[in-house]
């Protein structure tokens, strides 16, 4: 069936194309979590307020709770599951872990994607730029200190190759 409210679309997540059938009002977050089965992307508020559901859309961070799945067709979606290279953590993932920037871990996927996008567009952010870049991701555990340190450390390591 393909009535006016139902769409057959292909979503490309972490380089893999998934055919899915979705209602037109369905948000990208729920399709990623239930249809595609990648649960690393979290739902914290369903209202664009917390950033836990953040994914990259063609490299740009968006809150997937407030983005229609049908709008993501033909674009490249990156979730937290797409950050590591096989068993090897990305530099940012490793630094976040080693600095102590992970506590309960629920904001971590969104935080990693925001920070990944930030470092893509700015390879040497100041502390202020990091703080503003991550201000759409709420963390209740860490006070952000160690997360900011991990991002800055990562920028240094990536610049130094």
């Amino acid at each position, binding site marked *: 069936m393909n009535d006016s409210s139902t769409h057959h679309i292909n979503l490309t997540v972490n380089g893999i194309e998934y055919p899915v059938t979705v209602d037109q009002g369905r948000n990208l977050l729920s399709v990623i979590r239930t249809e595609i089965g990648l649960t690393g992307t979290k739902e914290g508020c369903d209202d664009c307020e917390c950033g836990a559901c953040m994914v990259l859309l063609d490299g740009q961070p968006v809150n997937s709770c407030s983005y229609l799945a049908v709008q993501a067709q033909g674009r490249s979606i990156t979730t937290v599951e797409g950050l590591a290279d096989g068993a090897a953590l990305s530099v940012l993932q490793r630094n976040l*872990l080693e600095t102590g920037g992970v506590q309960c871990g629920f904001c971590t996927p969104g935080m990693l994607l925001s920070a990944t996008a930030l470092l893509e567009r700015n390879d040497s952010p100041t502390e202020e730029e990091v703080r503003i870049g991550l201000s759409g991701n709420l963390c*209740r555990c860490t006070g952000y*200190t160690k997360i900011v340190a991990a991002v800055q450390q990562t920028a240094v390591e990536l610049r130094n190759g």
Partner: protein
Amino acid sequence: MTTTASTTTAPRFVRADGPDKVTGSGRYTADLTLTGALAAKFKYAEVAHARITKLDVSAARAVQGVFAVLTQDDVPDVKFGPFVQDRTLFARDVVRFEGEIIAAVAAVDAATAQRAVDAIVVEYEALPVVNDIEGALAADSPLVHTEWAGYGGVDVLVRHRNDASFASIAKGDVDKGMAEADHVVHSRYVSDGCHAVPIEPRAVVAQWEGNKVTIWTSTQVPFDARAGVCETLQLPNNRVRIIVPHLGGGFGGKCGFHYEAHVAALARAAQRPVRLVFSRREEFVAPDRRREGIVYDFETGVSADGKITARRAWLAIDNGAYTADAGFFSQLAAMHALGPYRIPNLLAEAHLVYTNHQPSGSVRAPTAPQTCWALESHTDEVARVVGMDPVAFRKLNAVDTGAEGPSGQTYGEIGLQQCIDAAVGAAGYGQALPDDEAIGVAIGWWPSFSVPSGAYVKIDGDGSGQIITGAQECGTGAVMTLRQLVADELGMAAEDFELVYQDTSVAPYDMGATGSQTLFNNGRAVVAAAGQIAEQLRSLAAEQLEASPADIVLADGTASVAGSPDRGIPIAQLAGIAASGQLLIGHGSGMPPGAPPTVGSTCVGDLGMSAWVAPQFSCHAVRVKLDRDTGVARVLHVSAAHDSGTIINPIGAQGQVEGAVLMGIGQALTEGTTYDDQGRQRNAALLEYKLQTCADAPPIDIHFVQINTPDAGPRGAKGLAEAPNVATAAAISNAIAKIVGVPVRQLPMTAERVWNTLNSFGQTGLEAQS
């Protein structure tokens, strides 16, 4: 970070659960699905106080795709509550707060379940809303529970009408102490309620097999959740299994027993697994765990040379509609209202007051941050009247090693005075600042909770180990640290051990991620369990090496003979030998230290909160900049000094302080629940209830004063996760008061409240009446 003693063991610490969390492979409760699972939704009261005159669920049951609709008629008629049995799973006759559950639905999907909820017919007769904490204590106030006198409850609770728990602490002669004073300073403060706000909304999944139920749930306290299910559904402990997948934060908000029984009852009725996932609004409105609003009245007598001669404190604490775990709040708040000071004559009286608000419950250091805010703001007022610098005033009056605290407990070695020196020193207190900046200082304290706890440790034939513990990880890293304790006991590496945890059918009891108690109590348990294996390993090694067990040293993965390091055998090899003989299994609990004595005080409503095992102390010094045009306060720098005993995991400990301080800044400036005149929350969303963001967070200097306090936990560790949340808001208040001229008397100190205070005082020299 600076420390006064170098006793830390792990300079670098990577969480065992870290790879799960940074790759997205770690599963939280809402990530679980079971074949055939149904979605649950609740019908809420939506009004704060009313009598149910009609409740008809027949239309909901008729919705296609609905498998179960439950009301109180469908579950055992049990009243529950840890202190006062004043609540049932579903409201039957009267609803007492807007988030009270009237009915629950399980259906094929969430949308169908919501349609069924919307089809439930409820009619009400309005009852008067008890919306004012002090007003609720008036003799002519409407009652929240007309049948209060018939409720079961803890014997020592002093209850009367809307007062669910009265507590007082008295020492000396307070009238005489006031008469002897050269100055008596009187202050009134009001703190609004606020929320824990873990980023993960709670979720529960329940599945029955035969007469046994397994419940996956986002709780901080799996054994308490199990107890609640067993009590309300009348099941024995061994037929209820609680499993907690990764837990996305708690901060107390996920303590207590919540919705596990509702979902289990739905699953039993539907004969299908059932899954409940909360929305953010439900997370704000429904749980019986939000931080309590309190009204304070302080009177402190002080001599001309700055010594406190007497203190009176009176508190009315918002209990909300049901008592939940707040029964002890009155005594604990009374302790915080007296503070860590030497006061010869005192009387603190605290009432825990029923209202038609969401029930209060233990949120990170319950009663402490707001009471510290009020007391320490008052303390600066007292110092000003005496003409003393507020830091000098605290140094003179605060407790120290060997001093007697307000409840008559004499402290062993403690580090409060050192904390004051460290925090104030690092903040540059006393330096010249622009006239829109100031440094405020406050001191705080918090108990360590000494309770039973258990764990097993086993080492398999390949030399790899498992720690099977009842402890619950909520993000703090306390459970992660257990690996280090066990490894050190056995001369092995932390990485040699995996954790098996958060499963009530596998591990012995632990109180859970509450009361900052994990390392203190479960640390004791795992050390005891590992000690049994160490003994086994020494015996095995002694046989192999032809030595005495007493001479065997376990270090670096090897058992060797003391003084002859070349005579050794790898522990993994010993584990292989044990695998074909007597297995390497240890179990531990250890006796929790008993409460210290108090002398000379009289405690009414005594729930054991006046004598503190291994108390923790802190001092925060906070530099604040105030925009006089807008009333917006910005925290520029925080210096936090803590005596939480020995720090075993420095990175984890820093993380606790950093997170708690930022939570404290939120509580100080932006986080407060507001109610409409019908007792409903007006700001139950993250845009209206503002948490601090990354861009708001200031630099935080941390100093651990590592003191060898008697009766502390493993290696001298005390608790830590709650203590750093205590003094931040108070220090911010004292900085704002320095700039404004008087304190802002309501928490949170929003820009509007600061502006109002600034303008009324700035123009007239008189304070605004709140």
